[in-house]
């Protein structure tokens, strides 16, 4: 909501097991950034933004 560039899906893993397999989810919350990057565990807001910036090479 705070960025026009970012969309965010909350995905119930137990209902979509194919995504759990696709992203090799072993612990939750598991955040996938643009299909290729991920961060595991609860993130502080600022840390998540930093992970996003890192993922897009900023």
């Amino acid at each position: 909501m705070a960025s026009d560039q970012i969309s965010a899906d909350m995905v119930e893993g137990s209902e979509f097991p194919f995504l759990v397999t696709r992203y090799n989810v072993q612990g939750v919350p598991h955040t996938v950034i643009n299909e290729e990057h991920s961060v595991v565990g609860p993130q502080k807001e600022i840390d998540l933004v930093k992970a996003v910036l890192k993922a897009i090479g900023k």
Partner: protein
Amino acid sequence: MGVLKEKDKNKVKELFKDIDHDVTIVMFTQEIECPHCEMTRTMLEEVSGLSEKLSLEVHDFVADKDLAEKYGVDKIPATVLVGEKDYGIRFFGVPAGYEFTVLIEEIREVGKRDPGLKDKVMSELAKVDQPVHLQVLISPT
């Protein structure tokens, strides 16, 4: 049959009191509903009745394929929160347990048009100059 307890409804009603803008909850299900779809729809019908600022649109994932595509909905049950525009907020699966808290919080943020983030986080977010798709995988608690 309802899914929310009376005391939870009252609590949510209280939380929704400071919503001052309209929020449309757009849900995708299908004609023959999956059990999770039915539960999600029932829950959203109850939630949307807790504030006059909220409205619920229920669409068929198959019959309204174009709309589903527009919202980037590729699986159901799907719940999209829309304010004066689509902010890219989606829930896939039943928003129950901890996710229910997140759903209520997100509805409030959209309803107040305020993401509730610190200035420092906002200034870092401003550096994001290309589309980013986040998927947070969680499990029921």
